[in-house]
């Protein structure tokens, strides 16, 4: 068992954008996904489908993401947002980006640097695993 209380886990979780190359041991990998299986869902349908990529499969997926981003292939999400985001939400999104740029020493005016920051998403921040939800 972990030493963290639920409250501590809620308050310490935040988005990490830089990972070590070290893989998560199988036993721990299975444990966290087993825990997540206990999530609630309407009438217990459990509609989630998780697809986890590691190792060579992840490398292959990552290279293809990067290839497309570099080739400026337009994003084509299955379920895109409908319409424009309201000002309150836009403001919060801007604050989020500002916090990231500030931590990385990137100026708003520096478009190429901002593009490099954006590209890190598609490099999956060098993570050894990615899970897709479908």
């Amino acid at each position, binding site marked *: 068992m972990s030493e963290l209380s639920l409250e501590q886990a809620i308050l310490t979780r935040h988005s990490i954008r830089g990972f070590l190359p070290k893989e998560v041991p199988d036993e721990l990998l299975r444990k966290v996904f087993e825990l997540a299986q206990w999530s*609630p869902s309407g009438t217990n349908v459990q509609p989630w489908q998780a697809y986890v990529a590691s190792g060579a499969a992840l490398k292959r997926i990552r290279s293809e993401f990067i290839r*497309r981003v570099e080739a400026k292939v337009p994003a084509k999400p299955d379920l895109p947002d409908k319409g424009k985001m309201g000002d309150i939400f836009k403001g919060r999104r801007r604050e*989020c980006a500002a916090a990231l740029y500030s931590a990385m020493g990137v100026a708003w005016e520096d478009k190429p640097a901002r593009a490099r920051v954006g590209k890190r998403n598609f490099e999956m921040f060098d993570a050894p695993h990615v899970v*897709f*939800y479908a």
Partner: protein
Amino acid sequence: MKDNFGSQTAADVGMYAQTLMLAMTANGLASCAQGTMAHYPDLVRDNFGFEEDVKVLFGISFGYEDDSVAANTARTTRAPLEESVAFIRD
């Protein structure tokens, strides 16, 4: 999720995602939920071999934090409760 499902189902997957990320945090793992992982769903479908009628929602990168990465010092805040929650009694 299958495309005969709608936003209720997407909400279920969202609840799952937070449970997973909290379980990861409690076990010393780091994560980043990413909408960008839904940008090229055909790529994901091809690699895992699932059908066109299963729609990609998002992805979560995870592993161990590299604490030498500057981006990991970034922190966001949260809006005051009044902006997000309404309480009524009468």
